[in-house]
């Protein structure tokens, strides 16, 4: 699903965010990428949906080579990847359903099909009853669930969640992780970027630890090892 080979990213003037990263993620895996602030985990996540390009090396997602992808192909790639952020990235003037539909709208989806898909993903995240609420009328956890629902509309094979629990309390954070696990059980590959020790330890899944832009450890049923 994901193949990184000798990937480095250097920002000007000479800030090395990632150095010689090689990593393989199989379809259906749930991988946590952990590391302290500045370890390069967000840069790595951004590379997976072509928000950043590697300075050196190869990043392949499915059949897409991110290091060589044309700008015009990026939207097509992004429709095949679901992305979830810490700050939810919801439009305040749109309801939960409209926020989700927005992802389909920009892709030119038919209105009737759009309604069907929105209803379906809202059911997956358990928010059918709150479809017509605006983000300000939802809790942080619910907003993140809307964001996850939006990431699911194109039936992605890969979901990248960059600190999805960063703005949530422990209970809501567990809800979100539970939801991501459920999505993973349906066969979707999940890459979770986090620095939350409890979440990582509770998952009992593969953990890749980044330190100073390099992979410090990669353990199949790992734990949060940083102090």
């Amino acid at each position: 699903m994901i193949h990184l080979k000798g990937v480095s990213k250097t920002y000007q003037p000479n800030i090395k965010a990632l150095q010689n990263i090689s990593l393989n993620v199989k379809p259906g895996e749930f991988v946590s990428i952990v590391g302290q602030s500045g370890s390069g985990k967000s840069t790595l996540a951004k590379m997976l949906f072509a928000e950043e390009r590697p300075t050196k090396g190869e990043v392949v997602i499915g059949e897409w080579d991110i290091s060589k992808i044309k700008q015009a192909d990026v939207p097509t790639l992004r429709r095949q990847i679901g992305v979830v952020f810490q700050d939810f990235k919801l439009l305040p003037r749109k309801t939960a359903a409209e926020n989700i539909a927005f992802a389909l709208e920009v892709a030119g989806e038919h209105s009737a099909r759009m309604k069907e898909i929105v209803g379906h993903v809202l059911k997956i995240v358990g928010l059918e009853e709150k479809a017509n609420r605006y983000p300000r009328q939802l809790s942080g956890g619910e907003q993140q669930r809307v964001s996850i629902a939006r990431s699911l509309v194109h039936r992605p094979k890969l979901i990248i969640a960059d600190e999805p629990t960063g703005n949530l309390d422990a209970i809501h954070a567990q809800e979100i992780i539970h939801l991501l696990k459920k999505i993973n059980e349906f066969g979707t590959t999940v890459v979770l970027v986090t620095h939350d020790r409890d979440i990582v330890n509770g998952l009992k899944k593969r953990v890749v630890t980044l330190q100073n832009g390099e992979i410090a450890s990669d353990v199949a049923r790992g734990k949060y090892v940083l102090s």
Partner: protein
Amino acid sequence: MLRTFYRLLKFTFQNFFRNFWLSFVTVTIFVLTLIIVNAMIFMNYVADRALESIEDRVEVAVYFTSDASDTLVKSAQGYLLGFAQVRDVRFVSAESALETFIERHAGDDVILSSLDEVGNNPFGHSLVISAESPENFPFLLEAIETPEYAPFIEEKDFTNYEQVIDNIKTLNDRVRVGGYILAGFFTLVAILIIFNTIRVAIYVHRDEIGIMKLVGANDWFVRGPFLLEAVLYSVLALGIVIGLLTLAFNVLDPWMARYFSGIDVNVGTYFMQNAVPIFGTQLLLASMLSLLTTAVAMRRYLRV
């Protein structure tokens, strides 16, 4: 395709109404610019019609000496009629000139008594020439100075008309230059305002743009609403200007018919008959201008 266009339109109108006051100012400036452009077309048309009408009425009189026989003057009339530049040559006899003079000064005893003192008819025959164009007069007046007629020509009356036409043309040219400067100024203001409006619109929609990109909108889907908004400004402004012009012509046309009595100056009909070239060109130019400005603003501020 149609669905995508419909959605682009939806986002365009959302942009327009979310920044309503900015959109309002942009359209207003566009309206002012187009009003000036149309006022210039209007002035040009009225001046041209007035000039044409004056030029049609310009006649030049060639006065012959009192000893020139009517045979000689009529021969000069025939000679002049032979020129293609001549529309008509009217023979005015000495007797008829005297009658006209007496009629014109019927109440003026001093003038009439001086006529009595002279005793005989002091007027000679004359020819009144109408040319196809006033520009032909210098040539015709030159042409009549043949050895046969020149000794009998007392006076040629043209200079005043030439001056009047020149004055109108000069005034029209000055108004036109002023119009160009004003239209240029407003165009510049319109460019700056559109640029700023689009810049603000991009800023206001930065979150939405970011999310659009995140969920896989292509570049044109992001740029489309801004470009359509630019066209919308032009279409709206032109629509308002056409409405205002229609109202103005309803008031102006009857007033101008009275003011320019005898001259056919129906501006409303002129604009109506030439609506496609006049307003089509304006729509095209205004849209191109706003699209270009928007493109520059997007290039500078929109990262897709």
